[in-house]
């Protein structure tokens, strides 16, 4: 047994170097003034003050949260029925469908998002198609709709797979019991199936909301140069402005926001869990 735990040492070293150390550096940068020497640095809270006193930054943060919320909602509403359908199919069909959901994920996300640029661009296939159907030729690329579409498209597999897993684990005898006790199909779904699948929904929400709120290349590619979310602000501070300290401070604020939302979602999970106990 001891031998086995020793096998984890490379991973622990790796995690410390690649995850813990950068995080510590971000914290260090966030609380220090720019232009510090390696040994000597002066602590400051000015980056946080700068962020929270500027309505523009707060508005960007708010817009990022809103669009991430919309993305999560759409992924849930669209993803649940798909997951339900997959879970109720027979083994062979289910495997094919799961493969169909995961197959696109074998291709790099960036490449797939670039493909959407071609589809949505002015004079592209979708615009021409809408024109033929009599919708005029609306502008598709570089709109908020395009960003939302890109996010839902990229993140919905996570939602479907999570919900599907929890639905597959569902004990069929519970459904039989429910029918036995006189519940119709609708009641069975709302009172038995849905509450039991909540853990899957919750982890789906986490897996969609967190990357969506911090995503920066989807808004960059599909939203255009004048569409900034908080991820773009951070990227911009690092790459273009060169303000690593301020960029780190915003990153740290984002970490806090994410931890808070995780906490909120966990609460949801637990209250769902209690309902499960009551059943």
């Amino acid at each position: 047994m001891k031998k086995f735990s020793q096998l984890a040492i490379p991973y622990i070293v790796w995690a410390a170097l690649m995850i813990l150390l950068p995080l510590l550096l971000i914290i260090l940068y966030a609380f220090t003034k720019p232009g510090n020497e390696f040994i000597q640095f002066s602590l400051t809270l000015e980056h946080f003050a700068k962020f929270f006193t500027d309505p523009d930054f707060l508005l960007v943060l708010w817009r990022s949260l809103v669009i991430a919320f919309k993305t999560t909602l759409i992924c849930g509403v669209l993803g649940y029925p798909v997951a339900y359908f997959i879970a109720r199919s027979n083994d062979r069909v289910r495997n094919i469908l799961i493969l169909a959901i995961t197959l696109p994920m074998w291709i790099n996300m960036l490449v797939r998002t670039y493909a959407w640029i071609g589809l949505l661009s002015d004079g592209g296939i979708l615009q021409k198609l809408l024109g033929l159907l009599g919708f005029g030729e609306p502008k598709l690329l570089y709109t908020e709709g395009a960003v939302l579409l890109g996010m839902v498209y990229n993140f919905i597999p996570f939602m479907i797979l999570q919900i599907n897993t929890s639905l597959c684990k569902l004990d069929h005898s519970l459904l039989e019991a429910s029918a036995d006790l006189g519940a119709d199909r609708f009641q069975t779904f709302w009172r038995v199936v849905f509450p039991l699948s909540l853990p899957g929904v919750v982890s789906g929400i986490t897996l969609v909301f967190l990357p969506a709120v911090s995503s920066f290349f989807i808004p960059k590619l599909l939203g255009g140069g004048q569409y900034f979310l908080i991820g773009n602000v951070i990227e911009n501070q690092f790459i273009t402005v060169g303000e690593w300290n301020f960029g780190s401070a915003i990153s740290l604020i984002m970490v806090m926001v994410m931890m808070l939302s995780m906490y909120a979602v966990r609460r949801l999970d637990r209250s769902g869990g209690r309902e499960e106990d009551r059943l």
Partner: protein
Amino acid sequence: MKKFCALVMALVLTVLSAGCGGSSGASGEGEFAGQTLRVYNWGEYTGENLIANFEAATGARVVMDIFDSNEQMYIKVANGEAYDILVPSDYMIERLIQEDMLQPLDKSKLDCMDLLVDEVKGLPYDPNNDYSVPYFWGTVGIVYDTEKVSLEDLEAEGFNIFLNEKYKGDIYLYDSERDSFMMALKALGCSMNTSDQAELEAAYNWLLQCVNTMEPEIVTDEIIDSMAQGRKALGLIYSGDAAYIMSENPQMGFFMPESGTNLWSDAMVIPKNAENPDLAHAFINYVSSYEGAMDNSSYVGYTSPNKEVMEELSGEGGDYEGINAYTPQRDNANDEVFAYDEETRKVISELFSKVKIAASNAG
């Protein structure tokens, strides 16, 4: 068994070495046969046959890497990557000279300086062309749809036309902090190289007003196709891109405001750590020669520093006949060349990121 393995290895090695020998042998009777030139250049910035012809003429092999911003180029070179030729812009050359990263050109090996237009020689970033030979040059101006925008408006307002609500929702800005601030500063009658806080603040407010009231789209290279298709009325653009747009769509025009604009040039330089400076000099000569410059300029569309090529392409029967964007030189004391100033760059960079955030919140 061992013997068999050794035999196979020997065979493989023979084939491999024959392969290598073959390729260098094939490319080479020229003076530089078997040598390699490493070039670091902008994307889509060389003529169709330029590299192949240079290889054929010299017997050397050319490896070209691509960058899409001066800063990206700087970081890679500063980290010790060895290239023989770089093609940065004016202000970046100034920085490289200041930081002692370039080697002076050996003028006895250059036979091209007399072929070049006077306007691109001896510019402030390298007054005697001790380090650089121009590659392409041009200005920044306004590309406009002659059916939608009147020349009178442009002449009266200059860059301030980007604040004229008549064209609300019908304009492109260029996603570059330097060019955006250049436009705002010139619209306000300031020098684009100012480091005065109040002037920079005024330019920032000018840009804020633009993004808050005009619904601009902030784009980069998409502007080329979009304006060629006439999607919007006005856009801030590099002269070379405007030349291409106008050759595709005769309804488009190019205008340079009287208040002045940015006179830019990209030039070839040889970094300190170049491994083959002799070959680099040969490359500079070839690119500047009639043959090389013609290939470059007719294919890419930016203005050639080679006088003969520029005159032929803009003259009667040339590819850019009657297109004013191709010949951007003029006498205007307000036109300036970018100077390198790290402090101001940081200020502008931060202000421009706030302009983009404001644009995003306004949208």
